[in-house]
């Protein structure tokens, strides 16, 4: 067998997430009849909204082969910043007193998201710093900034009009769910049918090859981070509506779940692989497991453990997949290299 002739990953593996989701749905429905109700399914979807939007943002950077670990802090800062600007000062709302128009506040929120994305992108592409470290540092810094804004207190009194997105219904369907599905559809479309999307895959698959082909890899990476930042703002908007208040710890510890959902859905941590559809599947799977375990009244701590195992399983498959299909590096002179 030639060392560099590898089997293509079978279709099953690529669409694994849907089989897994189906499996989870079947298992939970069997275990409790409260699972497969309209109410609960709607619940799952609503809870998926924020995670889902964040995963879209993360997927854009992951496909280029970069992490955005700051995402959860971006969500937090943008959320509290928005709340802060719109509310009255002093107790009990703890706002700025500016009572900014919700539309304006939204603008500021998106602006902040884009700004953070721009900073991440610049540090990584122009100053050539490691993406893991940069976004890790930003994770810490931005969470700190969130605390600075609120002094640790929760901001309340957000105008109802603003909360509509996270709250309201269009008939029987929550708006946030419509937004979630629309966002994924749009993201899928961009990834599959625009040059921008295809460029991202090229950059993640082999950024040198991409550059040589005329793709401005650095620019694409910066754009991916901008999108991640914008998505955080979007998610913040929904989250504020859902939660109702601006809690300083919004998004804390979410980073693992975001990565997990992406990876479970087939977006490789190594870049250049995966689809938005799969990512959506990952989000739905994680939310379903959460919901199912909750309904089964499993202790919150045990749920964490199960989540950990699910993440491990998903990433194991990702690692195997990539190992199987990643060509051995062919430096000068080797036609077949033994890998250990």
């Amino acid at each position, binding site marked *: 067998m030639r060392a560099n002739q590898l089997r293509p990953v079978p279709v099953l593996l690529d669409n694994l997430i849907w089989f897994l989701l189906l499996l989870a749905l079947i298992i939970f429905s069997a275990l409790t009849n409260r699972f497969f109700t309209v109410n609960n399914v709607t619940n799952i979807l609503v809870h998926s909204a924020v995670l889902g939007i964040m995963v879209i943002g993360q997927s854009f950077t992951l496909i280029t082969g970069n992490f955005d670990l700051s995402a959860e802090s971006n969500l937090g800062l943008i959320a509290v910043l928005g709340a802060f600007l719109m509310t009255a000062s002093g107790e009990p709302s703890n706002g700025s007193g500016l009572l900014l128009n919700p539309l304006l506040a939204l603008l500021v929120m998106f602006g902040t998201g884009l700004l953070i994305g721009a900073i991440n992108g610049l540090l990584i592409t122009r100053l050539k710093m490691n993406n893991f470290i940069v976004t890790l540092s930003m994770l810490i810094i931005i969470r700190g900034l969130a605390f600075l804004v609120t002094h640790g207190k929760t901001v309340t009194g957000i105008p109802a009009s603003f909360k509509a997105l996270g709250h309201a219904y269009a008939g029987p369907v929550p708006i946030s769910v419509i937004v979630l599905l629309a966002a994924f559809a749009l993201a899928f479309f961009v990834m599959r049918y625009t040059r921008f999307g295809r460029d991202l895959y090229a950059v993640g698959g082999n950024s040198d*090859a991409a550059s040589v082909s005329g793709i401005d890899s650095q620019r694409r990476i910066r754009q991916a981070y901008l999108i991640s930042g914008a998505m955080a703002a979007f998610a913040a908007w929904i989250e504020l509506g859902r939660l109702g208040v601006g809690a300083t710890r919004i998004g804390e510890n979410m980073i693992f779940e975001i990565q997990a959902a992406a990876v479970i859905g087939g977006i490789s941590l190594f870049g250049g692989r995966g689809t938005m559809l799969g990512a959506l599947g990952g989000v739905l799977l994680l939310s379903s497991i959460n919901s199912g375990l909750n309904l089964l009244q499993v202790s919150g701590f045990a749920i964490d453990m199960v989540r950990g195992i699910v993440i491990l399983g998903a990433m194991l498959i990702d690692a195997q997949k990539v190992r199987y299909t990643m060509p051995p590096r062919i430096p000068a*002179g080797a036609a077949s290299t*033994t890998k250990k």
Partner: protein
Amino acid sequence: MVEMKNVTKEFPGVRALSGVSFSLRAEGELHGLVGKNGAGKSTLMNVLTGVFPPDSGEINIHGKSYPRLTTTISRQLGIACVHQHSQLVPSLSIAENVFCGSLPTTRIGLVDWNTIYRETGERLKNLGLDIDVRRKVEGLSVAERQIIEITKALFAKARIIILDEATAPLPKSEVEMLFGFVRRQRERGAAFVYISHYLEEIFELCETVTVMKDGRNIGDHAVASLSQPELVRLISGVEVERFRHSDRIAFGDALLEVRDLDRPGVYSQLSLTIAPGEIVGLTGLEGCGKDSFARGLFGLEPLGIGVTLLGGRPYRARSPREALNQGVAYLPRDRHGLGIIGLRSVRENITLPILSRLMGLLGLVVRKRENALVAQLIEKLNVVTPSMLQAVQFLSGGNQQKVVFAKLASVDPKVLLLDEPTQGVDVQAKVEILKIIDQLSREKKVAVVVISEEIRELLDICDRIVVMFKGRIVREFLTDDSRTTGEAILHAVEGTGVA
């Protein structure tokens, strides 16, 4: 077509190009570019493709002058470069790779997949490649990928294609496939610049050759007017003697002996004996099993079943560590992946296998002892390095290879398995390495196996040459025998010719 006049390029501390003039006259020209490591070949091409702006000089392409050439402009003008390291995106399909960076779109600006697949399929067929263009690149062999890369360049309407050491990762059989492809393209008018250390390939493929030395163009020649020794002399500037191995001495009892070694699918009925101080060449086509055999002996791969004796006693190595412990050392063909640890210093590379021997009290490595040993080896092998603490990645190819040799020497081996020892090494260092091999075997009575596809070199250095074909040993030649000629060996290698 292309005319570079008086190009000069300096980097901090070094003059890479001094007033170099280079030209490609005609369509369909096959022009070789040779020179030692550091002579400036790659830099010259980098200037032509717009990667580096020249400090001075002119670049004229198709008659027009380009004072500020960029990679984009160069590409638009039809100049493309294919390196030895893959420039394809493995997770994407062949079709998408070919169109990478210039994906066609429909009227509303969406990616036009139909066109992409259709056109790629058609054109590949025209170029003589029958392959499913939806396949992901990661499933292709190295040669297939090289061809896709050249195809990609041609797709981008490249008329001038630079192959920079493009055959280095290729086994000989696939090089032939590549050359056939290149010749077909040349018939359609594409011109090629072929940079290589493999002089035999230059003679086979090119019509003209430019020799560079120390940043200068020291001559353009018609290939037909040169002989290989002349070319070698031009490249190195010195009358480099062909290395003649020292006389055979009475060798004595066999040191390494394998009998009826069998590894299904790789080799069978392999029987070989090597005496101490003997240099045995092992050659054959890619896939004949020669390098698997060496790696099997060294513990990197399974060896198969059969009898293996070292010094009369049974020998088995399930890992390189076990092999080294028993005195068997291996020089890998893949220098960067298996041979050197680029980030670490020369000193660390050399002493890695024998650290435990340098320990003093408390299990700590004694610096003085280590430095002494390393200094000695560096001198003996003439490793050019500013300091023993220099990271090996900064040395030239030839010196890196010598560091690997030093490492093997430090182990004091009884058997040396050398896989393509002079590959990727400039002419001067090649000779030095051959001398080292000769010296090691004669002085230290080391049994040496040299695996190489360079028959000429094997004739120079070995006492015996063993030819393998499809997993079996088909012939053995004694180099002192007058019937042993390059041709005869080649026949055996290719499985033709009567024994």
